[in-house]
């Protein structure tokens, strides 16, 4: 398996860090090597958030990504900021509910997911990140669906258990 270098970016509050962590958890459960590196700073809801996840079969030296194999953008400014950071031939997932101008480069594959609209259709716009996570896993097979299901159950447990069913549906909405 090649090393996957995934960059996820969007507004603070869109659950960018959460889906990045979930991806990392599932990768570990798949017995892969993985690193998760979040941006950190004086950031708040509405600001910017991004994280990079490296998944590999062999030990990972650098958690920092200069050329991503896959970019996931949940808002328009993130695409403008990170499009150049994708390796030629890489894949870009865009949340087309908020990203109206798509990928400019011709050497990238764009996958548009109406994550925001689909989440609203399911009754909770906040689940757009989980809709996107489902689409990402199904198209790219970075981690097994089986283990991601377990991670979902772990993340939405205890006080958040009432959110599990809705997020499970959101996770599966993109086939």
């Amino acid at each position, binding site marked *: 398996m090649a090393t996957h270098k995934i960059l996820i970016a969007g507004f603070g509050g869109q659950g960018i860090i959460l889906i990045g962590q979930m991806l990392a958890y599932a990768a*570990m459960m798949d017995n892969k090597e993985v690193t*998760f590196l979040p941006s*950190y*700073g004086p950031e708040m809801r509405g600001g910017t958030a991004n994280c990079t996840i490296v998944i590999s079969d062999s030990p990972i030296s650098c958690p920092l990504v200069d050329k991503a194999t896959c970019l996931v953008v949940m808002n328009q400014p993130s695409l403008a900021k990170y499009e150049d950071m994708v390796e030629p031939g890489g894949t870009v997932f865009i949340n087309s509910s908020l990203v109206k101008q798509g990928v400019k480069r011709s050497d990238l594959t764009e996958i548009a997911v109406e994550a925001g609209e689909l989440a609203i259709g399911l009754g909770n716009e906040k689940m757009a990140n989980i809709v996107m996570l489902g689409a990402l896993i199904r198209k790219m097979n970075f981690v097994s669906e089986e283990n991601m299901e377990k991670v979902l159950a772990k993340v939405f447990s205890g006080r958040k258990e009432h959110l599990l069913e809705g997020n499970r549906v959101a996770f599966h909405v993109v086939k």
Partner: protein
Amino acid sequence: MSEKQLMKGNEAFAEAAIRGGCRLYFGYPITPQNEIPEYMSRELDKVGGAFVQAESELAAVNMAYGGALTGKNVFLSSSSPGIALMQEGFSFMASAEIPMVILNVMRGGPGVGGIQPGQADYRQATRGGGNGDYHIPVYGPASIQETVNIIYDAVTLADRYRNPVIILADGMLGQMMEPIILPEARETVTEEEIRIQKPWALLGHQDKKERTVVKSLRLQPDDLENHNNKMHEKYIEMMEELPQYESYRLEDAEVVFVSFGSMSRIVREAMDHLAEQGIKAGMIRPISLWPFPNKAFDEISPKTKMVISAELSIGQMMDDVKCAVCGRFPVELLYRTGGMVPTPLEVVEKTKALLEVTK
């Protein structure tokens, strides 16, 4: 052995300190290590320990000093400007021969600086930011797992030498997540055991004992000189015992990097890119920064053209690298500072430029 779990650096560091036996924590919030006091405030109580949020770093270091006088293992963490404020306490503890495990999750400086990763406290840590003839062993681990192991081992190391130990992590290691295996928790030491293992500990006179005195004040110069000489014997022992490093691909290396911590991971990936471009690069990764692993430099091949100190500071480690190289190879510097972190490709370009200049 517990099983693999995904943990954020800072939380793993705190857990490593608890499992290593630390039962007291004193701190004051500062980014990028705030998850540590948060974790300690939640977890220490559960193992019979105590967490105190001090009113400042100066208070925290002196509370920690006081706490350690009781013979309990103390963990102290902060980030660069906060660690700067604690230097007086470190010097006092070294002089009074008080064990302490200190973690600096470094950020960009000088001054209040910024909150992104840096390594510019290298000189302060390895040379000692406080006054007087003292040394503190300093480690610069490169992964969450290595940091966890070093913190865990530092608890017994500090006790054995009766000396503080400093671990230099940085914002990147503190904030990132990696799967790790946590070490087994050590048993909580009882007061009776402390009385036997640490006769210097201040646990009350018990009516009959002679007074136990712990101090750093020695007004008689001959007394102080004797004390310093005695401590120096301990430092010589450390210089023998503690140097630790890892070396990669030194054989036939055209260029040898010297790099520690987060930066060494970036360099490690840059080495692969350089190899693809036909440039043989090796690396010495110091794990102990004081004592510096000078012996590692004897492994460098005579064919090597250049040694590069790659760091997140402007040549602070290069002084030690030059000292260890001792004139055998040209030493160059590759750095970013102020919270800027280079990408592997940037390291590749800068290395090629350095090689070009010396051609």
